[in-house]
């Protein structure tokens, strides 16, 4: 009897230990998840519709976290939030007559980099006086799913450039894209590298007179206009001197890359850091404000998020939000060496 009692007691102790281990483990796993879910629920249904909207549009702009808003809202509600926080589409395309490229002998300092700052972000603005130095650099002469993309630094080196930023979008399901295949159209050094002449794209590119062209057109129209380098993304932010109308936040808080051109032809390349404690990110309205502040006549948004990087002389000068470092992408806007170098 005493032996049975001892055996029963032993089983209870081990069971109790395992039970406690199980409870601790479950608590450590369950409580944070529950807290996170409840936190998101507070954001979704809490006292701030603005915070809700910002959360929804910010998550929808990411590649890996698009599913989060769908936990709390249906597609109609999400669509309504997106529409209430969007940038109005442009009417027409950029008017090249508004750009008078400064003759090289009158150009000021070739490349200037300035820090920019806002309520929720910090970033860099690169001003390239000579627009002829800008081109669309590509990872490979032809794109293929079998060929992984390159980092912006590698693309810049491939084209002998001195700086640049990421450019167009690419297939990036769940944030795991390898930058092999671009989205939309790619024109590089006068040649159509990706896309169809007959399809309509949101063009962001340069013509042979080094004027920034933004707007919707077919690939054929772009080539007929003399577009020498172009990618697809958007939205257009400033068209012919007029900032686009922004509803609500005009987008979420995320890392941003954008391009603009002043009336004297100087190109503006902007990166905004995001998803960091000291730089949450910028909304489209922030990008419009900055581009307008720097005198952009035309400006458009490029791919952002974890792709947002800016290089100068081989050095990464902003803070990439990806923990894995700069991503492999198919296209970049490269600042070439000066013609006489």
């Amino acid at each position, binding site marked *: 009897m005493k032996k049975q009692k001892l055996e029963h007691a032993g089983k209870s102790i081990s069971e109790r230990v395992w039970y406690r281990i199980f409870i601790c483990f479950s608590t450590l796993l369950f409580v944070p998840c529950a807290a996170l879910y409840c936190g998101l629920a507070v954001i979704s249904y*809490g006292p701030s519709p603005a915070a809700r909207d910002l959360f929804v549009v910010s998550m929808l702009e990411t590649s890996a976290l698009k599913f989060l808003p769908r936990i709390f809202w249906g597609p109609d509600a999400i669509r309504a939030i997106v529409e209430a926080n969007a940038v109005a589409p442009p009417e027409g395309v950029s008017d090249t007559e508004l750009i008078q490229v400064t003759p090289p002998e009158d150009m000021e300092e070739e490349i200037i980099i300035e820090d920019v700052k806002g309520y929720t972000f910090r970033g860099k603005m690169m001003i390239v006086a000579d627009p002829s130095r800008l081109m669309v650099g590509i990872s490979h002469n032809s794109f293929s799913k079998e060929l992984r993309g390159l980092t912006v630094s590698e693309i810049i080196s491939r084209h002998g450039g001195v700086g640049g930023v990421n450019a167009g979008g690419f297939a990036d399901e769940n944030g795991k894209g390898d930058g092999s295949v671009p989205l939309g159209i790619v024109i590089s050094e006068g040649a159509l590298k990706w896309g169809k002449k007959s399809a309509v794209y949101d063009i962001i590119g340069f013509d042979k007179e080094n004027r920034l062209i933004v707007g919707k057109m077919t690939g054929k129209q772009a080539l007929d206009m003399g577009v020498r380098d172009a990618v697809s993304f958007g939205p257009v932010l400033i068209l012919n001197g007029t900032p686009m109308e922004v509803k609500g936040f005009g987008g979420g808080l995320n890392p941003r890359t954008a391009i603009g051109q002043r009336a004297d032809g100087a190109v503006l390349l902007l990166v905004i850091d995001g998803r960091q404690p000291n730089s949450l990110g910028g909304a489209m309205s922030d990008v419009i404000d900055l581009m307008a502040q720097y005198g952009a006549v035309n400006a458009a948004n490029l791919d952002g998020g974890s792709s947002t990087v800016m290089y100068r002389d081989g050095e990464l000068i902003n803070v990439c939000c990806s923990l894995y470092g700069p991503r492999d992408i198919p296209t970049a806007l490269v600042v070439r060496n000066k013609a006489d170098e």
Partner: protein
Amino acid sequence: MVFVAVGAGLGYLWRILDEYEYSLPDQVLSVYLAPAVEGWLPLLFTKEAATPGLFETPADKAGFIRELLSKDQLVYQRSKGKFGDGREIYLFKSGGETLATMTLQKILSGRFGHWEAANVELHLPIYGDLRVIAPTDALVRINGASPPESSVAEEGLPYPALSNLPPEIGAWPTQREYRISGLYKKPEVLAEGFDGNLLEVKWHEENGENWAAVSPTGAPPEEEKVREMALADAKLYSMYTSRDTTFAALSKRLLRQSHIYASLRNMETIFYTDHTRVAFADGQTSNFRKFSPSCMAIDVDYVYCVYRDKREYRFPTASTFIYWKTGKGWLIADIILR
């Protein structure tokens, strides 16, 4: 304890979100959205009408605002404002038209701060300025109120039709111009002539300029007598031009001191001297105007026919006869061929 901590954390998050919502510009801007029209009135009266206007009351202006805002939904949108200096500019629009520009200033308070309206510029599509040109002795009322002397911009403006009259005759009738600014709506302009009759007001609203011309008009009973007199004078004048009457006969109808007297006296009237007869046809009068108790005008249109060698020569004539009252009755002070 874990659940209590989580609960406390969620409560703290709720409070932060509440503060964030309060810190947004919308908290300030939404006050001025319709149907909260009353939010506009303090702005209006602070910026535009601290004291009631002479021609429009605060209620008139408020009514204008209400009517304006009821046409289409009032919305606001962020303008391309300065960045990073704590200011933002918003445009209030209705039906695509900007009604106001509001500058918000960020006030640093609490965790997120808050916004306050720093400056408002109204761009209301009000009627604007008005010029009223009326006879000097007319009693003008704009929205029922008489314009003060301070609103008289010009005095002694001559009537174009009377510009050829000799000044030594007497005080010729003149006009004066009133200028009223900042009207919200097109006003009602009424004018009473020296004889107590209501005068005609003609409006001109072109190229952003508004002006009302008050014309002296006649009283119907007097106009009939003048009509007969003017037709008879026109016939006499025409017969003089064809030498079918003498200057002596015509001069009895002319004001001796007038320029027309001297002109007609010296006029060559030798055309169609050989003719068998004349006729005065299709005589009509119009546009009777009484400028003052001693000055009036009437338009006379007719066809003067001269017959020669069995042929009829027709001379359609459009004229204006200006009359001046003397001790001998109404005499012709000027004849204008229009």
